[in-house]
C-alpha cells in the first residue's frame, strides 16, 4: 500500500519536469472550475429551456431574433435598480407569449409602465442582482426582501402614486382605513411628498363627557366598544375590570360642566304624544344619511359619517339629547353635525325618539361604587400610559407627541428591528399584517389596541403600509404623483358663518375643501338660477330619485336663505365663461324641437335622465324635467360640450357634440319647466 503511494508520487512529482507538468495540470483544472460552473449555471438552463420553448412556436423567428443570451440586466442608477430578472424571465415583453403556462417565460401582464424604465424589484421586491432562483426570490442571509406576494402588489404603485388611482382599489382602501381607523392619531405617517396621512376618525372630545353620559356607560364602552355598536371605530384595549373602573372614574372626574349648563329635564315632562312623529322627523331630516340604526329586522340602515344610534338612549343622558339636537355646537363646537333649526316641539319629538332607542343589556351587569381618590389617580396613570389623549381631548392631559413609532418608512424596516413571535411569518409583510391583525399577540403589555378589521381590510392596510419604503422617500421627486390634500378654504362673512353652522362642508366640497357625499358647489353660482336655489334651500326635494342620501331640510329663515343665495350666486362662479353668456331669448321653438329629437334619438339621454315624468324612466342622472327653472343656459351648454371640464370625474359621458347640437339640446332642456317630481319606485 505504502509502496504503491510512493510510486504514484514518484510518477507525478519524481523529477522537476514531472512536477512542473503535474502542477500545471492541476492549475488548469482549477482554472476550469469557474467557467464550468458558469456553463452549468441555473440561468443557462432557463435560457436553453426558453429557446426550446420558442423554437416550437409559429413566430419562432421573431422570438429568436429578440433573444439575447448571457446575463441580462436592467440598470437604473437613480432608482437603485439593478435587476437581472430578465436573464431567466425572457418572454416578459413578448406579446405572443401570453398563453405560455410556464410563469417564468410568460409575457408580463399589462401594466402602464415599461419594464426597462422601472425595473422589476421596484414593485416585486426580491434581490435584483441575483442570478439564481433561490437568491432572487427568497430571503437569504444577505438579503431580507423576498418576492412580494401578489396580494400586496399594489404597494409597488403606492411608492410613487400618492394620489387615488382607479386601478389600485386595495391601496386606496388601505390608505382610507389608516385614516378612518385613526392610526395616525398615534403613529406619524409622513408621505414622500411631505404631506401627512391625517386621521379622519373624528374621536369625540371628553371635556364635558359627564354631561353627555354616565360613568357606567363609559366603563362598559371602554371595555368593549363594539358591544355597544358593531360599527364603533374605537379599538378594544382589553382592559381589566379594575382598569376600566379606574379609567372611567378619572374621565368622569375630569369632565367640566358645560357653559351655560344643560337644562334639567322637567319632572313632569311627558313622552311625545305620537311616537310615530319621531320616526318620521328622523326620516325627513335625513339623519340616516350620516347615522346608522338597526331596524326592526336587525339590519343596520344608514351612513357611517356619524356614530351609530341603535343604543343612543342607553348612552346619552336625557337632558343632553334635547340640547344636542337643538344645537350641537353647544356641546362640541368641532362636531361635523349640522345645526338644524328645529323648533322646540321638533326638538322634543326627536330627543324623545332617540331616548327610546335603548340597549338595556349593555349596562345590565355594570355596578360601580363611587370612585375613590386612589382609583382616580390610578385611572389617570392608565390614561397617560394608554395614550387616550392622542385621540380624545381630556381636561388636564396634554396630547402626547409621537406616542407610537413613526411609520413613514415601515415598508423598508430592516428585519433586525422586528421582534417576531410564534405563529408570525418571518417576513416584513408577515410582521406588519400580524401587528395590524392582532397587536397584543406580540405581548400582552403592548399598548396598541385591537382594531376590528376583516382579513381583507388587514391586507389592504398592510398594502398601504408596505408602500412606505425608503425608495419612495429617496427616489427623484419627478417620479412622484402628489396626493390630493384638502385645502384650508373657508367661506367669508355672514354667509360663511352660516355655512359653517350648517356644516355644508361635511358633505359638499367647495374650492378643494369638504366632503364628497354631495355635489361640489365651487361653481354652483354659474350653474343655477337664484330662484331655484332659494326654493331648494327652503325645501330640498330630491334631485336624484335613486339616491338614499339627500340634502336635509334645515328650517332656514327667509333672511338666512337670502344671505346664502346671494353669497353663492356671487362667489361660486367659474372663470371659464359668463353665466349670462347664452340668453334663453335666442332660442326658437324650432331649435328646441331639434333638441328634443337629439335628446330622444341620437343621444338617447332618456336612458339616464327624465325629461318628461310621464314617459321617461332613466334614473342614473338627475331628472331634467325642471331644467329651465333650475339651470342657466350657458352652464347647460358647456356641460353638454364637456362635462368633465365642469366637474372632473363626473360619469356623464362626453358625447362629442357639435356646437349646433349642444345649442339645440340646451334650447330643448331650457324649455322644460316642470315643477313636479315623481317618486320613482325603488326596486
Amino acid at each position, binding site marked *: 500500500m505504502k509502496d504503491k503511494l510512493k510510486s504514484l508520487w514518484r510518477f507525478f512529482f519524481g523529477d522537476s519536469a514531472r512536477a512542473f507538468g503535474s502542477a500545471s495540470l492541476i492549475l488548469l483544472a482549477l482554472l476550469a472550475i469557474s467557467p464550468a460552473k458558469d456553463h452549468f449555471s441555473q440561468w443557462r438552463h432557463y435560457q436553453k429551456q426558453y429557446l426550446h420553448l420558442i423554437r416550437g412556436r409559429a413566430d419562432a423567428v421573431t422570438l429568436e431574433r429578440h433573444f439575447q443570451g448571457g446575463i441580462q440586466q436592467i440598470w437604473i442608477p437613480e432608482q437603485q435598480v439593478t435587476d437581472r430578472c430578465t436573464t431567466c424571465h425572457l418572454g416578459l415583453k413578448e406579446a405572443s407569449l401570453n398563453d405560455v403556462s410556464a410563469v417564468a417565460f410568460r409575457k408580463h401582464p399589462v401594466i402602464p409602465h415599461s419594464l426597462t424604465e422601472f425595473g422589476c424589484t421596484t414593485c416585486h421586491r426580491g434581490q435584483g442582482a441575483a442570478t439564481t*432562483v433561490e437568491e432572487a426570490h427568497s430571503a437569504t442571509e444577505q438579503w431580507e426582501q423576498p418576492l412580494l406576494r*401578489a396580494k400586496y402588489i399594489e404597494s409597488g404603485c403606492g411608492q410613487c402614486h400618492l394620489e387615488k388611482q382607479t*386601478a389600485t382599489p*386595495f391601496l386606496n382602501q388601505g390608505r382610507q382605513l389608516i385614516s378612518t381607523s385613526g392610526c395616525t392619531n398615534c403613529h406619524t405617517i409622513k408621505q414622500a411628498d411631505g404631506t401627512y396621512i391625517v386621521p379622519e376618525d373624528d374621536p369625540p372630545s371628553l371635556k364635558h363627557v359627564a354631561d353627555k353620559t354616565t360613568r357606567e356607560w363609559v366603563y362598559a364602552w371602554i371595555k368593549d366598544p363594539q358591544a355597544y355598536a358593531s360599527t364603533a371605530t374605537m379599538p378594544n384595549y382589553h382592559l381589566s375590570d379594575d382598569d376600566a373602573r379606574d379609567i372611567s372614574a378619572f374621565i368622569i372626574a375630569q369632565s367640566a360642566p358645560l357653559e351655560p349648563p344643560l337644562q334639567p329635564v322637567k319632572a313632569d315632562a311627558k313622552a311625545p304624544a305620537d311616537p310615530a312623529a319621531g320616526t318620521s322627523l328622523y326620516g325627513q331630516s335625513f339623519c340616516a344619511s350620516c347615522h346608522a340604526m338597526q331596524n326592526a329586522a336587525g339590519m343596520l340602515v344608514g351612513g357611517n359619517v356619524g356614530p351609530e344610534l341603535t343604543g343612543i338612549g342607553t348612552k346619552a343622558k336625557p337632558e343632553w339629547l334635547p340640547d344636542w339636537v337643538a344645537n350641537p355646537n353647544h356641546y362640541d363646537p368641532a362636531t361635523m353635525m349640522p345645526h338644524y333649526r328645529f323648533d322646540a316641539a321638533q326638538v322634543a319629538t326627536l330627543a324623545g325618539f332617540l331616548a327610546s332607542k335603548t340597549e338595556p343589556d349593555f349596562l345590565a351587569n355594570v355596578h360601580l361604587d363611587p370612585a375613590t381618590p386612589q382609583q382616580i389617580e390610578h385611572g389617570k396613570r392608565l390614561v397617560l400610559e394608554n395614550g387616550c389623549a392622542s385621540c380624545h381631548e381630556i381636561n388636564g392631559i396634554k396630547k402626547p407627541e409621537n406616542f407610537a413609532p413613526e411609520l413613514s418608512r415601515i415598508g423598508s424596516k430592516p428585519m433586525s428591528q422586528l421582534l417576531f413571535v410564534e405563529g408570525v411569518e418571518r417576513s416584513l409583510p408577515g410582521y406588519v399584517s400580524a401587528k395590524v391583525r392582532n397587536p397584543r399577540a406580540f405581548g400582552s403589555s403592548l399598548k396598541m389596541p385591537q382594531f376590528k378589521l376583516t382579513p381583507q381590510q388587514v391586507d389592504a392596510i398592510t398594502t398601504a403600509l408596505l408602500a412606505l419604503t425608503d425608495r419612495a422617500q429617496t427616489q427623484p421627486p419627478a417620479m412622484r404623483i402628489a396626493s390630493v390634500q384638502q385645502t384650508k378654504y373657508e367661506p367669508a362673512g355672514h354667509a360663511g358663518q352660516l355655512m359653517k353652522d350648517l356644516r355644508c362642508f361635511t358633505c359638499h366640497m367647495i374650492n378643494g375643501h369638504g366632503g364628497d357625499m354631495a355635489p361640489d358647489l365651487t361653481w354652483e353660482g354659474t350653474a343655477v338660477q337664484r330662484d331655484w336655489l332659494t326654493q331648494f334651500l327652503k325645501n330640498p326635494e330630491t334631485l336624484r330619485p335613486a339616491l338614499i342620501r339627500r340634502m336635509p331640510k334645515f328650517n332656514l329663515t327667509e333672511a338666512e336663505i337670502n344671505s346664502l343665495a346671494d353669497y353663492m350666486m356671487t362667489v361660486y362662479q367659474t372663470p371659464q365663461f359668463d353665466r349670462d353668456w347664452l340668453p334663453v331669448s335666442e332660442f326658437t321653438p324650432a331649435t328646441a324641437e331639434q333638441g328634443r329629437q337629439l335628446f330622444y334619438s341620437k343621444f338617447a339621454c332618456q*336612458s339616464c335622465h327624465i325629461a318628461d315624468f310621464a314617459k321617461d324612466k332613466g334614473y342614473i342622472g338627475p331628472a331634467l324635467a325642471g331644467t329651465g327653472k333650475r339651470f342657466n343656459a350657458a352652464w347647460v351648454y358647456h356641460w353638454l360640450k364637456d362635462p368633465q371640464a365642469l366637474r372632473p370625474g363626473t360619469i356623464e359621458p*362626453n358625447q*362629442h357634440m357639435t356646437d349646433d347640437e349642444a345649442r339645440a339640446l340646451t334650447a330643448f332642456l331650457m324649455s322644460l319647466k316642470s315643477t313636479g317630481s315623481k317618486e320613482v319606485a325603488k326596486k
Partner: protein
Amino acid sequence: MKRALIAYCGITLLLTSGCSRKSKQPPQLQATAKGAAIVESSGGKQIGYIGLPLDQPVVVQVNDASGAAVAGAAVYFSGAPGVSFEPPAALTDSSGQVTSAVSLGQQAGRYKISASTRDASGKNVEIAIEEAALGYQQTLGAQLNAQYCIRCHDPESSPLRVSNMDNLSVKPHPFTEGETLNKMTDADLIALISHGGPALNKSAEMPPWGYTLSKSDIAALVAYIRAVADPPYEAGGLVYAQK
C-alpha cells in the same frame, strides 16, 4: 433536460406562496362516514383578485347514494400552486357540508379547484369548481365598470346602487354573458364602447365613452369583460388547475 425540469418545477413552487406548501400536505382526517357523491353548494364562479381571498367561501356537500347529506365525511381541497384553502381539509358538518375560504393564485386568469372525498369502496369522488382572478388590468376594468357601466349592464340592485336596466328600451347584457359577448371581437368591443351603440348598428342607449375614458381604460374594460365571461372567452384557454 431533467435537471432543467426539476429547476423549473422549483421556480414555480418558489413563485407561489408559502400557503401552497401548507396545502401540499393536507392533514389526514379520520372520517366517520363515507359518501357517494360530492356537490357544490355555493361559492363557485366567483370573480376575485390575485392572491386575495374570494368574497364568499366555497361550500361543498357530501351526499350518499340516495342524495341525503352525509356528516363526518372527509373532504380535501386542492388547486394549482399558489391557491390556498382555509381549511384545506375538513370533516363534513351535521348538514353534510364543508366550508373553506379560498385564496386564488398569483396569476390573473381562470382557476379550477377541486374538492374530493372517498366513497365506501375507497374510490376518490371529486368535483371541480371554477373561479376567476383579476390582475392589474382586469381590476382597473372592474373599477371602471362599477363606476360607469354596471347600473345599465347589471340587473341586480343594491341599496347603494339601483339598477337602471329596466328603464332601457333595449336590454344590455351583463358582462358575464359569454354566449353573447364572446362572439364579439376585441375590435368590435372597442368600437362599441368608444363610439356607442350606433357604431355597430345598435341602440344609442349605449353611450360612447371614447371622449371620457382613455384608450387604456377601454382596453381594461375589454380585458375585464373577457375575464368574467361565462362560458369562458377562450374555450380551452389557460386554466390554473392542479397538475
